[in-house]
């Protein structure tokens, strides 16, 4: 099994074969994005692999940096500025700033410039009747203009087309006639037939952009992987890190615009299943930021939209991930008041922390950990990079602050941890969960080094360091199923009279879904859910699960009751006397795929292994402390390590604080608890 994560800087390829993990890193290329992927596959070997799972930030980066093909946007006459206004949300810090501009607005960097957003004379009413017929002559004139402008794609999103798609389909036919078959076209009634025109418009625009960006790319990838001897399945991960076969992904490619942080959440879910725990806080500590997500009862929180940048949203299911600007590479600076501050700036990969010796002079959290003795200057990144202790020391000494040197280092470490703990607290509060019931999964290369210290600040149950924490997100790509899904909107009040109408919507979607998936779908259940609201509300309660079996006058009461249950769980109130209106109906079919197995070792009694060596832990406490050094691969199941100690492995270091105890579980995971709990 191979997984590839195409980032902006590096393309990481991970291969799991016979239980052994191999990794390679290839610099990403903007001009030839498929090249590094194929090169990584060639290095690790793809012959005989069953799956090649692909996640990429390519689409998101192209949107953020506006490296986009020239496309046009056709909409109902009078509505072309829908794309410019967004949802009109203004960030808090811009509320009083008259110079603030929406990043994708016409005065900033529009995704589609205004002259390529053209109005088409037509109008469909919200009930699906025609108010103004499609003016084909006017449409042709606009399309001729687009032809002269040499557009590569056209997004078509007409008002109320989610109710009746006749005009959109006809406009697509006209576009084909005028522009030819080489121009990519997306229509909103196929891409995302959901109510609310802005998200439907932006989704259609992103869809056509991704069609152009991923079209030739994925065909080339498939062809070249086959030439290397790969005969398995090529899958793309979506915004929720679930997998889609590449041809299915290209049917609605807006769903693969981004796949990254969610893979770590999926990996955590799998680890939790194997450990027998479903309540997890997942924290991925990278160089620049920490991504925090929540898993309750084995299910991550999924949003119905994904925000590419402020207010630029698309109707893609996405795992909810919150970020805070604190990571291993976060810069340590001095505030105006003379105090130490950490982040949100980062040293990045180049020049990197001062101790990398690549010219960085501003200290970072990694420098602080090195000066404390947590990091081994000769064993960093598997020994590939020797760390310069003197450079780190000089960087901290150069800070313009009256705070004593040792306190600067300790404060940098503790502040970084405090930022992460604050974000974790925010996530828990936002979702109304009690952290005492949750385990914190610490991953990313710097996660095990920093997050155990969060146990001093948060009432979490324990910190879990998974096997291969630096590769944990990439392994998430090899830990997930193929998920096919579809959705459709219809404003219908749920009642015995309307049950058949809603059932027909589900039945049609289910039939189309099974047709698309083919024979492999036989015998697999289709999960049905809906987004509903109390009649009169303008927002929805998403993902209300439907009971099994057909929806009819006899079962609609159960559906309404489930809505009220979900509403109460989410909002704390129950309004049973208000009718419930269904808005969006969803179907999902999960096809099991090959996954990285977690094979538990035989249970073993507690042992206390001898440390490999000891070191002096500086700056954490008033006086230096003697701490143990262990190698992770030499710790057997059941081994217990009392803090202060570090547990080193090639790509990561786990720091066990004084007053904490670490034990090795049957899956190879390290579980860290407070001493009084252990």
């Amino acid at each position, binding site marked *: 099994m191979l997984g590839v994560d195409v980032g902006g800087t590096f393309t990481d390829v991970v291969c799991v074969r016979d239980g052994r993990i191999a990794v390679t890193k290839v610099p990403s290329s903007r001009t030839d994005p498929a090249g590094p992927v194929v090169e990584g596959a060639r290095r690790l070997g793809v012959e005989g692999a069953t799956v090649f799972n692909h996640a990429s930030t390519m689409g998101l980066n192209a949107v953020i940096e506006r490296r986009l093909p020239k496309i046009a946007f056709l909409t109902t006459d009078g509505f072309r500025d829908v794309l410019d206004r967004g949802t009109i949300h203004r960030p808090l810090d811009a509320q009083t700033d008259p110079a603030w*501009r929406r990043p994708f*607005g*016409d*005065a900033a960097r529009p995704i589609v*410039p*205004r*002259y*390529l957003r053209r109005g088409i004379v037509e109008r469909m009413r919200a009930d699906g009747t025609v108010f103004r017929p499609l003016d084909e002559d006017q449409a042709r004139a606009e399309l001729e*203009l687009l032809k*002269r*402008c040499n557009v590569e794609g056209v997004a078509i999103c007409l008002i109320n087309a989610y109710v009746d798609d006749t005009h959109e389909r006809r406009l697509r036919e006209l576009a084909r006639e005028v522009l030819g078959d080489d121009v990519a076209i997306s229509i909103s009634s196929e891409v995302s037939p959901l109510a609310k025109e802005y998200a439907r418009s932006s989704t259609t625009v992103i869809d056509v952009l991704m069609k152009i960006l991923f079209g030739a790319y994925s065909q080339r990838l498939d062809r070249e992987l086959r030439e290397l001897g790969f005969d398995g399945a090529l899958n793309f991960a979506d915004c929720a890190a679930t997998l889609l076969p590449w041809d299915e992904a290209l049917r609605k490619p807006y769903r693969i615009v981004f796949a990254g942080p969610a893979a770590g959440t999926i990996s955590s879910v799998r680890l939790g299943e194997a450990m027998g725990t479903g309540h997890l806080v997942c924290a991925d500590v990278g160089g620049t930021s920490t991504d925090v997500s929540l898993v309750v009862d084995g299910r991550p929180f999924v949003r119905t939209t994904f925000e590419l940048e402020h207010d630029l949203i698309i109707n893609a299911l996405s795992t909810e991930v919150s970020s805070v600007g604190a990571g291993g590479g976060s810069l340590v600076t001095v505030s105006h008041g003379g105090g130490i501050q950490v982040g949100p700036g980062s040293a990045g990969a180049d020049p990197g922390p001062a101790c990398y010796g690549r010219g960085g002079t501003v200290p970072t959290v990694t420098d602080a950990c090195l000066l404390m003795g947590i990091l081994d200057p000769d064993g960093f990144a598997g020994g590939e990079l020797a760390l310069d202790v003197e450079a780190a020391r000089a960087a901290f000494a150069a800070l313009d602050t009256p705070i004593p040197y040792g306190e600067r280092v300790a404060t940098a470490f503790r502040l970084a941890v405090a930022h992460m703990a604050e974000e974790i607290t925010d996530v828990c509060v936002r979702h109304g969960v009690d952290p005492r019931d949750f385990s914190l999964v610490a991953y990313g290369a710097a996660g095990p080094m920093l997050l155990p210290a969060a146990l001093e600040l948060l009432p979490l149950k324990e910190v879990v360091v998974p096997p291969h924490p630096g590769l944990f997100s990439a392994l998430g790509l090899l830990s997930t199923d193929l998920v096919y899904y579809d959705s459709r909107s219809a404003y219908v009040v749920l009642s015995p009279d309307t049950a058949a109408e809603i059932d027909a919507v589900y039945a049609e979607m289910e039939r189309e879904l099974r047709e698309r998936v083919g024979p492999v779908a036989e015998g697999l259940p289709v999960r049905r859910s809906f987004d509903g609201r109390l009649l009169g509300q303008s927002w929805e309660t998403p993902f209300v699960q439907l009971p099994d079996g057909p929806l009819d006058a006899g079962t609609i009461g159960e559906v309404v009751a489930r809505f009220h249950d979900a509403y109460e769980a989410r909002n704390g109130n129950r309004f049973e006397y208000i009718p419930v209106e269904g808005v969006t109906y969803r179907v999902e079919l999960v096809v099991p795929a090959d996954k990285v197995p977690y094979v538990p070792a035989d249970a073993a009694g507690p042992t206390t292994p001898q440390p490999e060596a000891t070191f002096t832990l500086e700056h954490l406490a008033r006086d230096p402390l003697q701490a143990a050094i262990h190698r992770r691969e030499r710790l057997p199941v059941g081994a217990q390590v009392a803090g202060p100690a570090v547990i080193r492995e090639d790509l990561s270091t786990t720091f066990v604080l004084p007053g904490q105890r670490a034990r090795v579980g049957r899956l190879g995971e390290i579980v860290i608890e407070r001493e009084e709990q252990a």
Partner: protein
Amino acid sequence: MHSFPRPQERHLHVERTPVEGACPECGAPDLAAYRVLSEGGWWDVVKCQRCLASVRRDPAPPLGSLVPLGTTV
């Protein structure tokens, strides 16, 4: 008291000055210069009259054509 003539036209349009050259987007030789009020204030633009692509866009005075008396004495 000021006395302004009542407009006789049904719609008033800003005066557009033809500009030499062709539109780089659609190729039409139909460029014109005029002032528009857009997000960010007044702008002096050169736009293609066929596809409306902006060929040039320069910030105009903050109050557009209005010149307060105090600024001229």
